[in-house]
């Protein structure tokens, strides 16, 4: 699972949880996989992301070195930043571990790179 996906997910599906974001990451196996660098895609993506959550995720994974805490204003023309974003968002892969709800601590396991966001019957909220 990539930090890009982590950026999109919340635990607000749990009954009673209001601010299940960002999910904490406890990873036991992380890999870096080469993905073709595509600055246009990254540039399109960045305005849709919550960069502080990207940074938090990077800290959880011990990959925060060189990742700024906030997004660069000139991100579109800042090649170094785009490359950093490309690496942290698309190349870092969480293979095994857990995502954790920041409010309740409920764990969502990541197995073989695929997160499992299913809840048990007594946990689901209506939406």
């Amino acid at each position, binding site marked *: 699972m990539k930090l890009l996906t982590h950026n999109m*997910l*919340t635990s607000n*599906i749990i009954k009673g949880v209001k601010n299940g974001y960002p999910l904490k990451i406890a990873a036991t196996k992380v890999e870096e996989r080469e993905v073709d660098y595509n600055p246009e895609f990254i540039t399109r993506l960045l305005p849709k992301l919550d960069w502080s959550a990207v940074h938090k995720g990077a800290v959880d994974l011990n990959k925060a070195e060189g990742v700024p805490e906030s997004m660069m204003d000139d991100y579109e023309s800042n090649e170094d930043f785009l490359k950093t974003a490309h690496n942290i968002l698309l190349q870092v892969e969480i293979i095994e571990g857990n995502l954790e709800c920041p409010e309740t601590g409920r764990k969502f396991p990541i197995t073989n790179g*695929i997160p499992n966001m299913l*809840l048990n019957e007594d946990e*689901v909220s209506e939406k």
Partner: protein
Amino acid sequence: MAAPMKPQSLSCVSWSKYLFYFASEHLDFRLAELEAISQATKSEVRFDEESYDVKNPFLVVESPSIECIHRILSRSVLLRSIHQLLAQGTSTEELHENVRKMPKDLLDPYSKPDQTFAMRVETFNKKIPQKVKIEKIKALPLAELGFKGTVDLKNPDNEFHLFEYYGWDCNNAPDEPYHSYFGRKIGEGQRDRIQEYHLQKRHFIGNTSMDAGLSFIMSNLAQVTQNSLVLDPFVGTGSLLVSAAHYGGYVMGTEIDYLVLHAKGKPSRSKQKVRAIDESIHANLKQYGLESHYIDVIVADSSKQNMWRDQSYFDAIITDPPYGIREPAKKIRAATEDYIITDDMKDCHYPQKEQYELTDIFIDLLNFAAKYLQLYGRLVYWFPVIRAQYSESNIPQHPCFKLIANCEQPLSMKVARRLITMEKIHPYKDDTAEARIDIDHFQGSFRQKYFHKEKEIPNKTNPS
């Protein structure tokens, strides 16, 4: 609409005539695909919609530039080929007359001494012996055009076709064609991709994997282009994502069935006993060199949209929801009071799923798409119908969406599925109304209707 499809011309650019030769499958999808591609690739085309006949695979289309034509060819899976239209006629005499009327210099760039050429005859709905074909070529008044090149039937520089259309009814084909066209081939569509991406050669497939041709059509209707972010909320084995990635999209999917995403279920191939360890959607993309376009797949219940942080992430959502026929449609059941899951149950507990009604699936899908699609993003999904009971009021509506196309693929005399294309034309706001369906097509479950047999009417004339 960016691409005007009406015949009248307003601009001073000279529009040339082209002959579009369509494949004879998915007829109902042709114009929808063409319109979506021409708009997505900014390729202007126009044709006379009134004279369009769905049974005729030939369509005369005008376009201001050859680049537009090449862009359309680079995407379409329903077009066999496009030809520069040189002459046409509703009788052989008229065709010959129009060939004679062709400007003398029209073919100069294609008939130089160092160029090779081939003349071919293709007839639609009538078989004609090779001898007659050669006679037809010889009868064409081409002498004045002065072909200086030499003939090469295998790899010609230029290929000329005489197409003859003999109507639709193959039992009653007329002696003379209804319409003849003479043209120079410009190029072929993407029909070859259907073989290249065929499910038989796909690493990871399931019972309901979408065939390659229809997957490409869906990505075309969804206008997936370079750098689109695409989601399939009922991803299964990811066949739709493969086509989206082929057109440059970055792809994601969710699936409620853990065993499907982890390829732990029963294999779908008849001779395969167990699933290979490396079967996955990622592996499917890798098979075609598209792994850089793989984002993630998530085991998730797509009825729970709060899983996503509020943001219009996606450029396109394409999906084939489970109809409950070959794959069950499920969501996680909310617990009743007497149902308590203890802590020691949790580790090995599989949550109970309940039937996810088809109507709810579509309502949820539109509500989800209204929120998470970008403005002008497209939602493309299959909608199963009992043909005799279907009406347009069965199609779900949402105030953010405009219906773009509704194409039928018949599956049997009784059942069909419709590919619905919608575009988000209004931004989502907190007070936006929810999706609705005027007449529920699935009351009493689609599955029940699907397997329900019409009572046979006893044949009264039959002596008993």
